């Protein structure tokens, strides 16, 4: 009886992914405990977030990709309407207009778009696959630019970046011409100095600080400088769990959320960082395998985009904390405190599992 229920629970769960995810979450809880200065409350609340997100992952894994394909368009339209609602009636919190109060509770529609946009674009390309022309790519790009623009205006640079990346990956995997890709890159390189000369001094200064935090050590550069000190002083093996002086002495800002990787790096050192990278690498590799084995265009593109988006989270977060990328608000998957992004990420993995485990059903039908 119990084994039957267990079987039912396990049917659509990919053991490899599940193993990596569980391990990451456990590591995350330990780091959070240290980063929050030994707060059980924080850990408990994050544990609840994880359980909720895992439930959603399970639901997604048990949902047939057929169904996802059917709801792609309505979901995208709904997300877009909600985004417009935010722009018009949204609530402002911490200087950004991101939340929409629906009476029963507040929602953050931009988070929904992280999944809805790649679904929509994958659906579109799957539908048009017999007669793809450049116009389709242009239209798809438009579908991408509108929500990204709205989110950038909120302003929420981190989310806009993630969604732009998710959408771009679909375009790229769907075969966007190399000519356009290279042409785009070249023209961006050419336009950059022109934009630079057109900018106001204060705008330039802001960008300069992004790349050289020491220009504004008390302001925008403070995060990056303190994070570099934390990472660097971790050395090869780290200072040990709960022993990070930077983290424990209040020098690190946002150390339970976007900058939690600095705590990890300080306490577990280069070795810990490398192992964490490998763990994420395994998740990504599995995602790519699932994408390559997917049986139709929709699932292939969606799986590819979800995997590459997960990579983007990891790279952008670690990049900004270690100072190779400018600071944009992107959390570190499974480790940063907070439920919203965790739900989105595990929803993505749920879809990956669904795509992988519903395969045989599809081919027989």
């Amino acid at each position, binding site marked *: 009886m119990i084994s039957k229920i267990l079987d039912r629970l396990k049917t659509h769960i990919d053991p490899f992914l599940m193993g990596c995810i569980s391990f990451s979450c456990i590591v995350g809880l330990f780091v959070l405990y240290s980063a929050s200065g030994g707060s059980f409350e924080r850990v408990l609340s994050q544990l609840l977030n994880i359980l909720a997100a895992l439930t959603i992952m399970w639901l997604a894994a048990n949902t047939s990709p057929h169904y996802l394909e059917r709801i792609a368009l309505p979901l995208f339209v709904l997300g877009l309407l909600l985004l417009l609602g935010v722009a018009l009636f949204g609530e402002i919190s911490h*200087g950004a207009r991101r939340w929409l109060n629906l009476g029963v509770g507040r929602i953050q529609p931009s988070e929904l778009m992280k999944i809805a946009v790649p679904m929509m674009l994958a659906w579109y390309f799957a539908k048009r*696959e*017999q007669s793809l022309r450049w116009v389709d790519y242009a239209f798809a790009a438009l579908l991408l630019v509108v929500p990204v623009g709205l989110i950038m205006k909120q302003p929420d640079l981190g989310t806009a970046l993630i969604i732009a990346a998710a959408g771009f*990956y679909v375009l*790229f*995997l769907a*075969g966007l011409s190399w000519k356009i890709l290279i042409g785009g890159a070249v023209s961006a390189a050419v336009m950059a100095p022109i934009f630079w000369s057109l900018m106001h001094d*204060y705008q330039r200064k*802001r960008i300069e600080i992004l790349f050289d935090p020491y220009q*504004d*050590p*008390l*302001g*925008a550069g*403070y995060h990056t400088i303190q994070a*570099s*000190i*934390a*990472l*660097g*002083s*971790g*050395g*090869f093996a780290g200072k040990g769990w709960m022993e990070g*002086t*930077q983290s424990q*002495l209040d*020098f690190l800002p946002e150390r339970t959320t976007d900058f939690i990787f600095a705590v990890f*790096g300080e306490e577990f*050192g*280069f070795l810990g*960082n*490398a192992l964490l*990278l490998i763990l994420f*690498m395994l998740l*990504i590799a599995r995602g*790519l395998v699932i*994408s*390559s084995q997917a049986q139709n*265009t929709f699932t*292939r593109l969606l799986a*590819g985009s979800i995997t*590459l988006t997960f*990579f983007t989270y990891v*790279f952008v977060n*670690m*990049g900004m904390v*270690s*100072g*190779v990328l400018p600071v944009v608000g992107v959390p570190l998957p499974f480790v940063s405190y907070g439920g919203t992004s965790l739900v989105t990420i595990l929803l993505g993995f749920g879809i990956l599992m669904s795509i992988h485990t519903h395969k045989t059903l599809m081919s027989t039908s």
Partner: protein
Amino acid sequence: MRLRFEVKNHSLEQYQYSLRLSVSTGFILLCFVVLLGRFFYLQLWKYDYFQTLAENNRVSLVPIVPNRGLILDRNGVTLAHNFFVYTLEITPSKAGNVEETINNISQFIEVSAEDRKRFKKLRQESHSFESVPIRTHLNEVEAAKFAANRYQFPGVEIRSRLFRHYPLGNLGVHMIGYIGRINEADVKALEKSEDISNYKGSDHIGKGGIEQYYERELHGITGFQQVEIDADGQAVRVLSSTPPVPGDNLVLSIDSKMQDIAEKAFENHRGAMVAINPKNGEILSYVSMPTFDPNLFVDGIDADTWKALNGSLDKPLINRPIRGIYPPGSTFKPFVAMAGLQDGRRHPPFSIGDPGFYTLAGSAHQYRDWKPGGHGQVDMQRAITVSCDTFFYGLALEMGIDKLTSFVSHFGFGKKTGVDLVGEIGGLLPTPEWKWRRWKQRWYPGETVIVGIGQGYTLVTPMQLAQATAVLANNGVAMQPHLVSSIQKHNGTENHLMPITKLDEMPLDQRSIDIVRAGMVDVTKPGGTAASVGAGASYNIAAKTGTAQVVGIKQGAKYNAGSIDERHRDHALFIAYAPAEDPKIAVAVIVENGGHGGSAAGPIARKVMDYYLLGKEPGAATDASKKTEPPTPEDAPHD
């Protein structure tokens, strides 16, 4: 057939997709190698460096607040400066029971009721971890007394802070402004302009006047020190420091002596005065009466004083020259006259016989002249001199409202002058379109008629009126009015003159200029409406008086200054420039409820011009010479 095509297409697609996935994988690996490289650099290569930094962290960054720039008058007289004072400050979050702490402090150091009130207000405005002054201006003895008993008071400390001081007190407060503690709205504004990190450590920010408009220049750039901290959080030694850049000094075009003369000339009246050098737009005096002491705001004003200032019927906090709006009354006539002349109307020998009123064709309504029975035969020059209403009623109607307003707008009416102060109002130059937009009503010819004498919807600020007078004096060339004439950078070692800019240039005929000027010069001669103002002057003054009704007078009724409440009396207006032949100063004066422009506002302008042109300070000699002059019959109580 179709099947084969699809299959082929599929395998091709599969191949393409695999290629894309491989490229993606390569990109991911590359990015991870970059990350690993960075970790290697930070954690292995530069480990010793960051290890030391972390050891010393323990190293904290302490902001060093720059000295705020000075504000000086044109002769170098200090209008705003800084000095160090000892303050006794409480950090509520560290102090435990704050009330009890204050009571205990008062056993060593005097803490007045005002101090407590101010502390209460400031505490409400601050976070609990910010330190709030309970006493300022501690003397050495008090500081020593507290230091000896410091151990009893956790969360209380003596600090040395830079205080802003306005040595001339009330003088020119609306122009200079003052600084006050940074409040939430200021923080938001600073965040928006991305200046917030420059205010780490700053408590004060400019509020109003030059202090606000030139906040960026005055504040300077905050420096910072890397300080090593011991286990208790006390600074042990300075590791490195970037010195702050002090704020720029501002030199105003104001002469503080002249400002003082002007303010005193107002006696107890409310009102405003602006004097401008018409040739370059420099503002020479800027008066708003009544005034108040800006030093009250520096330590944080206590609630009662604030209430008294804010609630006063005299409204001392209003910056009248740029925020007070008044009907220009007859001071508008020279500008209407110039419009008419430039439009080719009313040149000599044109004249009218003034019966004392004006009627529109087909209407019984009489637009009355201020002088019952009229002025007799009046040409343009005389119409200005005697302020003939009837003459200007007809002129305005004949020109039409659109032509009239579009011409006089070149004098700066109906728009902000752009003076270097915050909060300027643009006044109002009415047009039919404006009325339709505002009231959804059509424009009546009768409304055009009264615009001719500066009544109706027309509203001006004293700043606009002074600027318009300066443009008139400068033969139609409008210079940008400004208060700051130069900025001294780096402790005064570098002097940057503010640019003098031309705003507008009206092509005026010399003939029109001569007629208007002659009419205005005669205003201050026997027979003019302000003959007493010109009496005994060694230079020619071109002027115009004006009166603005505060309460409407019914058709047929008579205005009687004595019988109505002081606050309902007419506002007195006066504009002038001198010397008439080569104007060096243009002045606009408004005395609220002062009655007649010539007698209430004119003498103020005269005192200022005497000082500016002749260096003469108001004293017994001038007063005596004035009293010997009998008032001319034309120097009427109404213009």
